[in-house]
């Protein structure tokens, strides 16, 4: 008797989720494949968001696949639906609208969310996020009114965004803190180079300083720092790195540290559950250690490897090829993060 096709459920419509879905479909033409995403938008490239601000294109211009692709590949797409619980024992998960979904094999590819440092949690409502297409859409509507923006933290996402802000003629202050340059290492040598690069781009840099208070004033904000600096700004972006988006796994029994712990085959501690992309903390045999996954390149690659393992191929991970970020003529090496330059 022919083997029954399995039901694969993927939590996450990002690079990891889509690359896995594509691989699964290729490897198992009859499988039932569903992608769930809490977001209303389709699969897109986050690295395009900064340049999306510069033109007037429709949000759909960001989408990497036309929706017909999912039809052609018979992949069910469940957008705007949030997973609130996973029960690996029962092989089921729960969606916020009270729907229980069964799976045979589950891939968690739920990405990451902005990290809100404890010291800033009081100001959450005053900080602007720039993490998805909707944020970009909303920001674009407000651009005309902005003169000055502040990057609270200065991670790579913020720096990329700063590049577009410069092109739009906005002046920028970067308050570099311990989370700066996430996901890259922020050691002293990098720090000096980065400050140098940013200054060359006429970005005001407040190094070794931290935000202590944010106050709303009229339509703008006043940001105060530990070193006594007072910045009048129109928007303060939270750019202090990202942390895995895995709250819904609470109580699932799946082992997590920063992210979901997976072995070199991307398998989690739970039977029939894999994880990939920015939600995963991956064991690399080359490093003999775990590393938190960040960046598009990693997400795509790990999504693909997870899927191959979900299809019973024993495929271990390896480190991604290095990429490059350029800021004010200074180059920085990335691993798994598709590089960019704010100089061009």
């Amino acid at each position, binding site marked *: 008797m022919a083997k*029954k*096709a*399995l*039901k694969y459920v993927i939590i996450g419509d990002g690079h990891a989720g889509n690359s896995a879905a594509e691989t699964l479909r290729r490897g198992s033409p009859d499988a*039932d494949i*569903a992608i769930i995403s809490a977001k*209303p*938008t389709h699969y897109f490239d986050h690295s395009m968001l900064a340049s999306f601000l510069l033109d007037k294109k*429709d*949000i759909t211009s960001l989408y990497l696949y036309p*929706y*017909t*692709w*999912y*039809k052609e590949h018979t*992949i*069910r*797409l*469940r*957008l*705007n*639906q949030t997973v609130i619980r996973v029960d690996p024992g*029962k092989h*089921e998960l729960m*969606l*916020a*609208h*009270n*729907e*229980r*979904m*069964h799976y*045979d094999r589950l891939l968690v590819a739920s990405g990451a969310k902005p990290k809100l440092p404890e010291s800033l949690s009081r100001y959450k409502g005053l900080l602007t996020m720039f993490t998805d297409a*909707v944020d970009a*859409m*909303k920001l674009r509507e407000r651009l005309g009114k902005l003169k000055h923006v502040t990057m609270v933290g200065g991670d790579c996402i913020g720096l990329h965004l700063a590049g577009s802000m410069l092109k739009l003629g906005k002046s920028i202050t970067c308050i570099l803190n311990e989370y700066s340059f996430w996901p890259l290492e922020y050691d002293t040598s990098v720090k000096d180079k980065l400050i140098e690069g940013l200054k060359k781009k006429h970005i005001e840099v407040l190094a070794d300083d931290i935000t202590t208070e944010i106050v709303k004033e009229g339509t703008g904000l006043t940001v105060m720092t530990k070193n006594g600096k007072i910045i009048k700004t129109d928007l303060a972006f939270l750019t202090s790195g990202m942390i895995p988006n895995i709250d819904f796994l609470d109580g699932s029994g799946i082992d997590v540290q920063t992210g979901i712990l997976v072995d070199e085959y991307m398998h989690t501690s739970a039977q029939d559950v894999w994880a990939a992309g920015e939600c995963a903390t991956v064991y690399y045999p080359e490093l003999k250690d775990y590393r938190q996954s960040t960046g598009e390149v990693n997400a795509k690659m790990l999504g693909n490897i997870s899927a191959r393992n979900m299809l019973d191929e024993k495929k271990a991970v390896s480190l991604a090829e290095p990429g490059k970020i350029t800021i004010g003529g200074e180059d920085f090496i990335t691993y798994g993060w598709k590089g960019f330059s704010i100089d061009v």
Partner: protein
Amino acid sequence: MGGKGSPLTYEKSLTIEICGSSGDRALAAGEILIKTLSDIGYHVISFDAYPAEIRGFGKTVAHMRAGREFMLSLSRKVDILISLSDRYAIEQLRNLNDEGVVLFDNRPNNVVYEDLPHDADQTEAHRLGPGVYTEKEGWKTPTKDDVSIAGHLGPGMYLYGIPLYQLSQKTTNESRSRNIVVLGAVAALFNVPEKEFINNLTAKLGKKDKSIESIIAAFEEGRRYVIENIVKLDPYSFEKLSVDRKSYRLMDGNKAVAQAAIDMGCKLYAGYPITPATKIMEILSDELPRHGGVVVQTEDEISAIGHVTGAGFAGVRAMTATSGPGFCLMTEFIGYNVMSENPIVVVDSQRGGPATGLPTKTEQSDLNHALFAGNGDTPRIVVAPTSAKECYQWTAEAFYLAEKYQTPVIVLMDLFLSLSVRNVSLDPIPDYKKGGNKFPTQEDMKLYLRQKITDDGVSPRALPGLENGYQAVSGLEQNEYGTPVYDELSHTRMTEKRFRKIQTALENDVPLPQRIGVSGRVKVGVISWGSTTGAVMDALDSILKQGKSVAMLKVIVINPLREKEIQAFFDDCEKVLVPELNYEGQFANWLSMHFQKKLYRYNKVAARPITHDEIEEEINRLLEE
């Protein structure tokens, strides 16, 4: 975030469905929505669906189309589907366009939905809903209630979840205001002005519902939820149009017929309830007494037409309305009124047949019956209005023609025309149409001949009570006095006279059929009748914009036919398409009895109206063939 959508702000029309089970009050929400869209300047047409068996059980769908431009038909595809009951709304997804929007309750009460089992047969599972898995029992047969619509959308569709149940509870302490919460969400999502919505909410519910404030709170809560929580990505949006539609009223065909009867001075309505004509009787039983008339609910349709016949004889304008099964019972009296030259108006709102057939589904399959019912040579006038506006105009005309030509006039509607609501502005009826009787002159009264042979076939008609106006009335053939006779000459002359007056009606009172589209020679011409005409007109509108060589002829008076003009139209057309909602092509057959032209038939017995997109496809097919 709610809001405006891209400025697509609809060139074309938007079709919306609100789907629920009984008790969800989907139809009430639909009524408020369509009225609001009409108030802000849109042309609207709505056609609700409810189950055949008993109203109030099972699935109900408020279906409406709204557009900036005038339109007469429904679209096959739905743009916005609002689910008040997922188990039913899932079935409606097959009509949703690939980039359509779904609104659903994302925090339902006491329900745990189940997703499709991976190994269930997909079609079966889709029909039944998904399986429920338990370790003990494995997959259990699902019930339809186990399904959420969220798992069934196509990949290009937009899903918006609103906690309808929770917001309804919060504002009204009960769950049945979910239909109002969703209207608030619609207002915010599709930019429908709040003010007009609230006016209509108050107008519809205010009188009945003491708790109108909490109802408005439910509406506001739905609106606010969308503004605060939903990111609108779909392109659909309305706006308040700067057009004056003060003279427009929302009405369905039944209301239009009833209104015409009142305005024409109808004093007796006799009928027996039958879908879809019952509402005519309901309206008239409220209204006629206020206008000095009466409504008699008879024991059956034979009695109903009998009452109307008696009133006609007595000179009182009278009408009955029925549907196919009832019309069958009336057949004998059609012949009787032809023979006795008595004016009666019979409305037949067609539904799927034969026999009891499909009581709640539309069809155009009573045409043969309307044209031929009765024994012997029984000429009669048959008119088939094509819109609510024409239901008014042609019911009025039916009274006029019946009286003027002393004959039965049959108004052929159908369920779609009867029940679909549109915003229409009615043309006033000219005064001279309000009394068509050819009264005898003093000269005539010297020796009154009820069946006098005249050039136009119409005899002077004395009403009972007129001095010396004695007359014998029966179903027997007669001479000029009305005395029964059976000789060759009398029967021949009288039969000719009865046909002659219909010919006179044709010459004097049947307007030229309206030709629309390209003049002169065309590749494809469409000739249509009844409610399908709306779909043809909408299709033509779109095709003409593409510069194609098409035209249509709208025929309202089916008997007598304007043969010369129809022939001229046929001469202009390379191909003639006849779309109709019946299997045989009854109108095409009728035309074939009169003309030589080859006709391309487009017949459907789809239990729903033909849509403009279907006609458009068919015309394009013929153009390309």
